[in-house]
Every structure is written in C-alpha cells, then in structure tokens.
C-alpha cells in the first residue's frame, strides 16, 4: 500500500530525513519509535503533504500512485489520514460541521452522493458513543478549549468517520489518561481490517499492549536504524535509546 524508498527531506536546507525505506502492506500495523527530534513527525507530515518540507530525494508511492505529486486534500480523499500530534483549534467551526464537510469531500471524490443529514447524525452519534465522548463535543468549535486528551480522542473520532485506508497516528497516546488510552485503543482496533494499514508513532509500550504491531521501527537521526517485531518495542522499553549512541546499531 505504501512504499517509501530512499526518502530524504530538508527543512530550511537542513537535512531532517536521511534516506528512509519503508514498505507497508494493507492489513499491517507498523509502530515507529525513536528519540525526540529524530524525524517521526516530519515523516508523518511529509506523507500527508504538509507544506514547508523539501523532498530532496527518493520516492513515495501509495496504492501505486506517486504520493509526492498529490495535493494534501487529494491524499486525504484517497485515504491518507494523519492524527496530529498537536491538533489545532478552529474557532467558530463546529466539530460536526467539519466532520460532515470532510466526509462529503471524501465521498464526492469517490463518486458518492453527499451524506443525508439524518444518516450522518446517526453515524456520528454511534461513533462518538464508542469513543465514550459526550455528544456536546459535536457542537463545540473544533478542539477549542478541549483538554489535551480530548483533542486526541477527537482525532480518532474523525478517523472513525472518514474510514481512511492509511492511518498515521502521531503520538495519539501521549496525553491520554489510562482509561482514555484503553478506549482510544479499542477505537483503533475496531478499525483494523485487511484493507487498512496503520503507522503508529509512539514513545511507549503501553499503547502497543493494546494494539499489537506487526513491525516496530526505530527512527534516529532521520533514518530507520532498526526494525523488528513486537518484541523490539519491549526491548526498547527496557533499554532506552542509549545503545544508539554507542554504535551498536545493527539494522
């Protein structure tokens, strides 16, 4: 589904990603871990088309198409979803309005009719319930005054409504309390399907306790320095990243 080859990316002429290679198939869950500042969010942003990054080399293909050439909204409509590490607030625009506009944009792209207002409301209400969110969040402005954890949960609500094919979760677990983590993880698990792939950026094993990854990658200094199975995350939890500096890298 996603194929990244030798990807190098600069921000303001400073190299941030230094040759990323990553193959992701439908149905798989990939966890990306790594120290602060190693380039995890940068990778997530580049995949979703955020402006301000210069791709200096390599290729990204998504479902066989060149992702780099697609405008960010087209990528979104084609099924690339990013749950942001820091979701922004949009004053004056209600959550439900954004959700409906987003869903209709995706549907239109797929050649479907706009969703009927009643159907939409029952869909949203069902999803919001599974995430244990109050319905009042629907009518509040997007993320405005939401707590850190509420914002993260709101991202997952959007993902549940849009049903994307490639879900990129950038530290969705950070800021969630213990119960919320469980609820969000259940929400994510509910979306697991053979047609869908996940990239989960995380610092902690506890998310992976709920959602077992097929692969774990360690990103450091803009490169994937180590890849492995679910047990790699357990090892990292014990050992930290000190070994990176000691030259024990054996990717």
């Amino acid at each position, binding site marked *: 589904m996603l194929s990244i080859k030798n990807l190098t990316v600069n921000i303001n002429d400073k190299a941030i990603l230094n040759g990323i290679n990553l193959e992701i198939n439908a149905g798989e869950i990939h966890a990306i871990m790594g120290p602060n500042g190693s380039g995890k969010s940068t990778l997530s942003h580049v995949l979703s088309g955020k*402006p301000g990054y210069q791709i200096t080399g390599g290729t990204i293909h998504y479902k066989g198409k060149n992702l780099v050439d697609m405008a960010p909204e087209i990528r979104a409509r084609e099924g690339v979803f990013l749950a942001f590490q820091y979701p922004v607030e949009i004053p*004056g625009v209600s959550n439900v309005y954004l959700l409906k*506009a987003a869903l209709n944009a995706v549907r239109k792209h797929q050649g479907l009719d706009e969703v009927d207002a009643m159907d939409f409301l029952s869909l949203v209400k069902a999803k919001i319930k599974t995430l244990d969110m109050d319905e009042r969040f629907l009518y509040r402005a997007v993320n405005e005054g939401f707590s850190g954890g509420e914002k993260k949960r709101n991202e997952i609500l959007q993902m549940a409504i849009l049903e994307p094919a490639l879900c990129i979760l950038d530290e969705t677990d950070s800021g969630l309390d213990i119960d919320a983590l469980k609820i969000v993880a259940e929400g994510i698990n509910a979306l697991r399907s053979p047609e869908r792939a996940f990239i989960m950026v995380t610092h902690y094993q506890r998310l992976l306790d709920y959602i077992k990854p097929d692969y774990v990658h360690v990103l450091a200094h803009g490169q994937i320095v180590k890849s492995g199975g679910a047990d790699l995350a357990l090892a990292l939890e014990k050992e930290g990243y000190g070994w990176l500096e000691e030259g024990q890298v054996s990717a």
Partner: protein
Amino acid sequence: MSDSTQEINQIINQEYKQGFVTVLETDTFAPGLNEVVIQQLSAIKNEPDFMLAYRLQAFRHWQSLTPPTWAQVTIEPIDYQAISYYSAPKRKEDGPKSLAEIDPEVLAAYKKLGIPLDEQERLAGIAIDAVFDSVSVATTFKDKLKEVGVIFCPISEALRDYPELIKTYLGSVVPHTDNFFAALNAAVFTDGSFVYIPKGVRCPMELSTYFRINAANTGQFERTLIIADEGSQVSYLEGCTAPMRDENQLHAAVVELIALRDATIKYSTVQNWYPGDKQGKGGIYNFVTKRAECRGDNSKVSWTQVETGSAITWKYPSCVLLGNNSVGEFYSVAVTNNYQQADTGTKMIHIGKNTRSTIVSKGISAGHAQNTYRGLVKVLKSAENARNYTQCDSLLVGDQCGAHTFPYLEVKQPSAQIEHEATTAKIGEDQLFFCQQRGLSAEDAVSMIVNGFCKEVFKELPMEFAVEAQALLGLSLEGSVG
C-alpha cells in the same frame, strides 16, 4: 511568506467584480464647492425653499470645521474643491416616469450587478431604490407599497411630496452640526432613500437601496431617512459598489432612523465599495454617519453590516435608546485586505429605563490591512437597569495585518450591567493544513473558517443577503449542519 499563506490571501483576495465603468451622457457639475454650487444643486433638484436654507446653513457651519483626526486611519488630505458635487445620467425633462425612459446603459449596469430593475425580472418580495451617482434612477414596487401606506421613494422626491415629514424628521437624529462629514452631507447631499411606515403597519416587503458610484471625480453624498411610526416594522437593506479607479472617491453619507413606540427597524448593509488595488491605490473613502433613535418605549433598532469594500471606512452606526425598554443591536463583519483601513464600531447611548443593547463585532484583517473596532457604551443616570453585552472578535490572516480594539465605557447609573468579551484568533497555515488533511480544499477551508467566525452576524441578515454576503467574502458555504 509560505505557500499556504499566499493561498489564503489569494482566496480572500478575489478580483473586484463590480469594477466596471458605464459610459453615459451625464449632467455633471464642474468641480468646486461654494454657495452658488449649492444653489444650483437645490435648483436642479427642484427643492422647496426650506431645503436650500437648510443646506446653506449647514455649508456655513461646515466651513468653520476641520476634518477629524482621531480615527485609526492614515489619509491624504481631501481637496473638496476638486470634487464634483453632482453627476447624473442625462434625462428627459422631468426625470423618468417609467423604466422605458431610463438610459438602457444604466439598466444594463444594474443588471450586471445582479439587480434587475425591469418589471419581469424583479426580485420577488424586495422593493429596490436604485441610486446612480447623485440621483435615484428607479424605485420598484412603489405603488404596491403605497397601497398599505408605506412610502418608499428617493429622498429628493420626498422633499417635494412630503415636506412636513421631512421638516419634522430630517436632521433630528444627526443634526448638521454633528460632525465634519455630517455638515458637508447636509450641505450637498444628493439622493438616498426615504421610508415612512405608518402606524401599526408591518412593511410587506424588504426595502432596499442599491448605491452605485459611476462617474469619476465625483463624491456621492447619500442621505437616507427611515421613520417607523408607532407599532410598525420594517427591514431595509443597502448595497454599494463602484468602478475601479486610481483616484480615491468620497462617499459621505448620513443615515437617520427613527423608531417610535413599539416600532422595529432592521437595517442591513452589504458594503462593497471598490477597495483600491493591491498596492493600496484608489478606492472609496467611506465616511458615514449612521444613527438611530429609539424614540418611543419598547422600540427596537438593529444594525447589521458586512463591510468588505472601501479603501477607508469610518463608520459607527449608533443607537440612542431614549424610550423605556428600547433595544439597540449592532452586528458587524468588517473585512480588510491589502492596504484597506477600517475604523468602525458603534455607539449605544442608554437614556431610557430598562434599555438593552447588544454589540457583536467581527473584524477580519488580511494582507497589510488595519482593522479597528471603536465602540462607546454610555449609560446616563436616567437609564435604570440598562444592560449591554459586547463581543468583539478579531481574526488575523497572516502576520502583516493589524487588529485594534477601543471599547469606551461611560456609566453614570450604578444599576447598569455591562459585559464585554474580546478574542483574537489567527488563520494560520496549521489550521489550513489540518482542514486539507481532512479532505477540504484550501478554498473551502478558508470559507469554512471565515464563515464560522462570522456566523453570529450572518444569521442576522435577511436570507437572500446572507447568501450574498457569504459569496462576497469569496466564499461558499456548503452543507447546513453546524
């Protein structure tokens, strides 16, 4: 500036679509202002003597005044002798009796603006007075309105046909001594609308005036007077456009509203004067005095304005709440872009008991524009239990623009309850990208954010015009949830 900021700017920054010029034969005065010009003006309009006397008195007073300097705007000095004070499409003898006599070019111009004046294409349920430069060229549905006693006509006609109403009310809310531009307007005003709603009548249609500046080197001096007699109701809307020119042109208007006991006036403006080009050259100077008097008990006046045009806007639609339990409202969206400057707001003067006022102001600045809210809430000793709620929000697009808020408060009555809220938000690149990541185009995202920001004001506009106002911001609002 990054790509997406540019993108936001482009979207807000659409081409001015009403900037065309209509080529016409006109009667135009040579530039210059003196008592002879005022006499000619009064004569060409066939005015009664009392009007000429009023104008001359105002002119003499104006000569003793200097232009105000307190507004947060930068303005080149205006040469009042370089302006022509009268320009009108040439007409046969006594003015057009029917649309057939109006210059077809003028009709075509209105049609191009989306304001059809001819019989077949009229907008149902909306009566229109079309003011072209210095004269009203047509008023639709006049006769139909007369059947219920509603008078809706050009003010120049009202001067001749309803002198008693004019004598009683003209200048009774905004006297010619009020300020520099009000004095100038009283001396040289040319046309505008006159509305009288008789006792107990609920006006069966929206009334609307469409102001068009066409001629070069002229000023437009609009004068509008609306009287809602006891227990009556009316909703009135004005729209404004002008051609694109490199010179600044002056639109100095005076609007007076009078609401008697139990009467309600709703006054909406969609102002889209030419704002000047992207470098700030040209554009209309929109210097306007608008004031309403809630003269009777339980009367209500509501101002709603969407201000997108003009190089400089200087405008404070106000309410004098004289009657007990009277209500004043002000809902405003002011958009400034490029080098536009707006200094706008309102004054709510509480005099009667239990008077209430609401102010909701939404300022949007983009480019290098400066947007100022200036508002006064004044509660006199007599205004027991007066209440005011003010909400003042600013939205900044990019980081070259500015928003300023000057709320003034004078309270002489201890039982008054005053609330003030203010916020400033920014449309950043991050918000735009967030929306795009959810599948919305940049255009729809800006539209959604701006409309969301302005929602509370748009919902005060009559339906048809809310749509126009949204379109004006270069935006389309899809879907209805939210």
